[in-house]
């Protein structure tokens, strides 16, 4: 079985994951000023020191959220869809598609997952991780 194709496999620490599975985003953390970057960078753009690769936890919490209702140029995701900020440990906020029917409440728990696009390629997305929450 071949590995799934990602839009950009460097975005995740577990590129062997398949659609719907939890994944860990591939970030970096500066050894000097502790700032985090996503996508990962070899050096800290703030202070220039070497940055360490970090796999973010699969769990995050919901920050602000909006929706895309009209197809943007070049997007493979079918409208309408939600886009929001997932907050990781109060350190870094990351934009992503949110797989839910309604915007999750601010502060509610999210899970980072692999999302299949209509052409079969994968990218990351977030979904509510509360039991019984929407999963698609």
């Amino acid at each position, binding site marked *: 079985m071949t590995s799934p194709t990602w839009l950009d496999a460097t975005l995740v620490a577990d590129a062997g994951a398949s659609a719907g599975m939890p994944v860990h985003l591939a970030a970096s953390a500066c050894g000097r000023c502790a700032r985090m970057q996503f996508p990962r960078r070899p050096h800290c753009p703030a202070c220039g020191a070497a940055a360490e690769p970090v796999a973010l936890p699969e769990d995050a919490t919901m920050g602000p959220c909006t929706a895309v209702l009209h197809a943007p140029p070049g997007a493979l*995701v079918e409208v309408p869809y939600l886009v929001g900020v997932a907050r990781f440990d109060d350190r870094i906020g990351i934009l992503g598609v949110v797989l839910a029917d309604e915007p999750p409440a601010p502060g509610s728990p999210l899970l980072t997952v692999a999302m299949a696009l209509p052409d079969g390629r994968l990218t990351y997305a977030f979904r509510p991780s509360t039991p019984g929450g929407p999963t698609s």
Partner: protein
Amino acid sequence: MDHVVVAGIGIHPFGRFDAGYRELGAHAAAAALADAGIALGEADVVLVGNVGAGMAKGQNLVDLVGHAGVPIINVEAACASSGSALWLGARLVEQGAAGTVLCIGVEKAPRGFIAASGYDDWQIAGGLGVNPVYFALQARELLDRGATLDDLADVSVKNHRHALHNPNAMYRREVSRDEVLQSRMVCPPLTLLMLCAPNEGAAACVLMHEGEARRRGVDAAVRLRAVSLVSRGPDDWFVPAPSFPLQGRTSLTARAARLAYEEAGIGPEDLDVVECQDTDAGSELAAYADLGLCAAGEEAAFLRSGDTALGGRIPVNPSGGLLSKGEPLGASGLGQVHELVTQLRGGAGPRQVEAAQVGIGHVMGAGHNASVVVLTR
């Protein structure tokens, strides 16, 4: 800055036109030259701000104005393109490297979403390369800090009312709060009438060293006292960055404003009139605090006080702003300069800010850049 005079201004109305970018830009440039009373060949350099036109855009535009053989430099910095041209031109004049600089901003933007704002392919294909998303998320944060949907709508209502008397604006009709709230939802909470429309237009100005202005007998009443330009710092967040620090996030606009105020030796309390980058209603509210007009968290209260409307203490976007003028990306900054100089000259007619002496313009563009200009008379 102590030596930079705004000797002439020109504009081509903002809207949709059959003419090409060259005609739009040449129209504004010729008007600015005529206003300053000089010929193209008397400019030491021409700076052209534009995003979308092709190779040698400025050269091909100026070709319609005349064949004067002067240096022409193209400047691109997304929505801050003409602010960047102004930054460069003002420094050339202030430092004596040029006596006269013609700055032109011009754009013929396609309809709809502004595409290609510097997003990576994975962002675009993955549905994240959408500029209004960034503004919608900012608006959500404003709502969390006490602003309401009515406040967002009222920014648009105010600016559309201001534009009624601006012949250069694309939309010159009043809109009601309900009309704004009920217009097509783009990215919640932002509706169509809370977002500016990318469009077409041009604006230009002639910057002149005060000594040169004196020698030519040019009206030197309006001065450029400062212009700042900043790019991404360690903790900023704007289009197209997919992530940002949750602690200690900073503002490009606040940094640009601080630098401009320092250079001009003034503070926000000295301002009479402001033109700011109201890409969307939330961006104008955010700019109130970032420009130092009010404290962070008090943006909505400041709007509700009426201070930022014409007749208020410090009118913001008396031109109607980008919400009413539309946004020709490369021309928006110089469009603000055109409005501010018109205001400082006392020539704004029914939208005149009474006794305006000090004004600022503010632009902010994709790729993380912001500029603030201070003009006085």
